[in-house]
């Protein structure tokens, strides 16, 4: 940025950036951690209600989204292999596929949520207030957790789009790809959280 | 050694004196050492510092000693506390209801009172119940304190051991008049207690009225009475249908209390200010009392006839 701090940029430290990203991921994990804590406590208190409510969710959509995310997680991991192997075209293609997957995930989520909204089931709705306590808590958690997760998907997508542009411009290349690596790490975080969200929200017996 | 106000004083005060004693000992000891060093090794007297080597033995010693001491403190603290959770089976059950900002005590036989009268030397279990937010049931002289949490059946118990009047405070912050949420505790002989109990009125039946519940939950009754008394605001007794003067935008006019007036009074209290009361005392309850609940509230107002 300004002249008088150019000394900072002389010194490039990829390990530092990566460590920084990991630390940020720790923060995100504990952010969701708070929600998982709330979830576990209410689930322990209202097991039957949680089970009944979870039947309202479509396991199919959940499975599709899980597969989509796992797949995208793999493609973004592959993009790093590709850039290390100096294969720019493949890198771009893989990032592109990942972004596409993220988009599919969001479209899916849109329909899933939209379906609930149509039935008058959304935070603050009249119907929600009338539900039994356990059901109410379940759906509040459902919207809160998946909503926050979707927000992270959007942030991840933005990061990946930037990475795409940078790879295209050539500022991310085989010996300088820490931005892509960090974007990928963030994307895996999103996947990691979904790995827990899916069984906890969709598969309750 | 300690006062005999309740059966817990002994345990709590023992722990207190023990921890305080150890603390004061360390505070004085360390402060003295510090001052001695500052004087003795002052630059003027001791111009060259002596570099000393770390000693692991010393580190271990001064880790172990505090560790043992704190474990002792923990033990006494725990021992003083444990009886507070072990309620005898024959304890008299009294329900303490906390709401913004007053206490109500419900005795066996559905009798209710604003102050807590208790017979001496008899175990009493307080079942703590809140109608709105968290309050704190606290009688410092008895070493008794437990939060009154809505939706949770907290309890506490004690055996009063001395005649007299004691203060009961609300210890958990609960809003505007938190500091006025007090009650009187009176410890009396058993016969007096029984006589008093017999003379108590029954708990009011209003409790099942939907409108009453809404007003009660929002703390209206801390400023408005139902029996014609003037507290902070005018009484609700006979309010509906009555005519009186209000000040609207600085001009005095006469109104008759109807549905619409009640609604503005609740949602926009400063619009029509009752003559003789300062504006700005009552806050707007918009959003707190839902529009759909208003009819129930108004129905309830209609029941409060001025006989």
């Amino acid at each position, binding site marked *: 940025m300004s002249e008088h701090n150019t000394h900072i940029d002389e010194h490039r430290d990829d390990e530092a950036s990566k460590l920084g990203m990991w630390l940020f991921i720790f923060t995100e994990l504990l952010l969701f951690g708070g929600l998982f804590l709330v979830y576990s406590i209410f689930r*322990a208190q209202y097991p039957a209600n949680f089970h009944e409510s979870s039947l309202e969710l479509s396991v199919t959509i959940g*499975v599709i989204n899980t597969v989509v995310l796992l797949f995208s997680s*793999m493609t*973004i*991991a*592959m993009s790093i*292999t590709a850039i290390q192997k100096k294969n720019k075209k493949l890198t771009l293609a893989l990032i592109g596929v990942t972004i596409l997957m993220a988009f599919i995930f969001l479209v899916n989520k849109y329909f899933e949520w939209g379906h609930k909204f149509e039935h008058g089931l959304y935070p603050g709705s009249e119907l929600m207030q009338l539900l039994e306590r356990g059901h109410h808590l379940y759906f509040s958690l459902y919207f809160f957790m998946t909503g926050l997760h979707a927000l992270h998907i959007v942030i991840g997508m933005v990061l990946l789009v930037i990475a795409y542009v940078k790879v295209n411009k050539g500022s991310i290349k085989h010996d300088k790809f820490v931005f892509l690596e960090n974007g990928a790490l963030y994307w895996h975080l999103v996947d990691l959280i979904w790995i827990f969200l899916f*069984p906890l929200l969709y598969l309750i017996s | 050694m300690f006062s005999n106000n309740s059966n817990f004083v002994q345990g709590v005060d023992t722990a207190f004196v023990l921890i305080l004693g150890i603390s004061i000992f360390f505070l004085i000891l360390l402060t003295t050492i510090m001052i001695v060093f500052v004087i003795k090794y002052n630059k003027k007297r001791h111009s060259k510092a002596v570099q000393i080597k770390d000693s692991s033995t010393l580190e271990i010693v001064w880790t172990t000693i505090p560790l043992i001491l704190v474990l002792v403190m923990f033990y006494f603290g725990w021992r003083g506390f444990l009886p507070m959770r072990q309620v005898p089976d024959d304890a008299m059950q009294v329900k303490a209801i906390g709401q913004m900002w007053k206490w109500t005590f419900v005795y066996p036989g559905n009798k209710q009172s604003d102050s807590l009268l208790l017979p001496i030397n008899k175990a009493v279990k307080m079942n703590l119940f809140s109608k709105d937010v968290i309050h704190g049931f606290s009688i410092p002289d008895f070493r008794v304190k437990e939060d009154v949490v809505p939706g949770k059946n907290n309890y506490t118990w004690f055996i009063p051991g001395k005649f007299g009047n004691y203060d009961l405070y609300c210890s958990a912050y609960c809003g505007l008049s938190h500091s006025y949420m007090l009650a009187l505790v009176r410890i009396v002989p058993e016969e007096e207690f029984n006589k008093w109990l017999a003379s108590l009125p029954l708990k009011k039946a209003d409790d099942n009225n939907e409108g009453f519940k809404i007003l009660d939950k929002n703390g209206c009754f801390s400023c408005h009475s139902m029996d014609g008394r003037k507290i902070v605001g005018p009484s609700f007794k006979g309010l509906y249908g009555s005519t009186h003067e209000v000040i609207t935008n600085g001009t005095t006019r006469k109104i008759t209390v109807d549905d619409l007036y009640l609604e503005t009074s609740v949602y926009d209290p400063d619009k029509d200010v009752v003559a003789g009361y300062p504006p700005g005392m009552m806050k707007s309850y918009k959003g707190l009392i839902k529009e759909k609940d208003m009819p129930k509230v108004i129905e309830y107002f209609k029941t409060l006839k001025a006989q």
Partner: protein
Amino acid sequence: MDNNGSHITEYKVLIRILFILLLCTFITIEITSFDLAAFTVTAALLIAGFKSYLVLSYFMHLKYESLLLRILVSMVFLLFFVIVLITFIDYSFR
């Protein structure tokens, strides 16, 4: 933390991991469709734990990172686990 000669994970490995992850997903669905009482949650969480282990080690390259970072990651998960456990000391006894 010096690994400038960055490790390259082969495509094959990544595909294999994806395959295992998908398999785990379907096992989870199968398991939770039986009613094994408390065991179902445990099983589902164990599998999810295993899956996240895979994602962390291979997709996130943790396997090839410094020991320090691996310890830090496990500490974070441990911390969260301990916090949940302690909170349950309150909830399961009241």
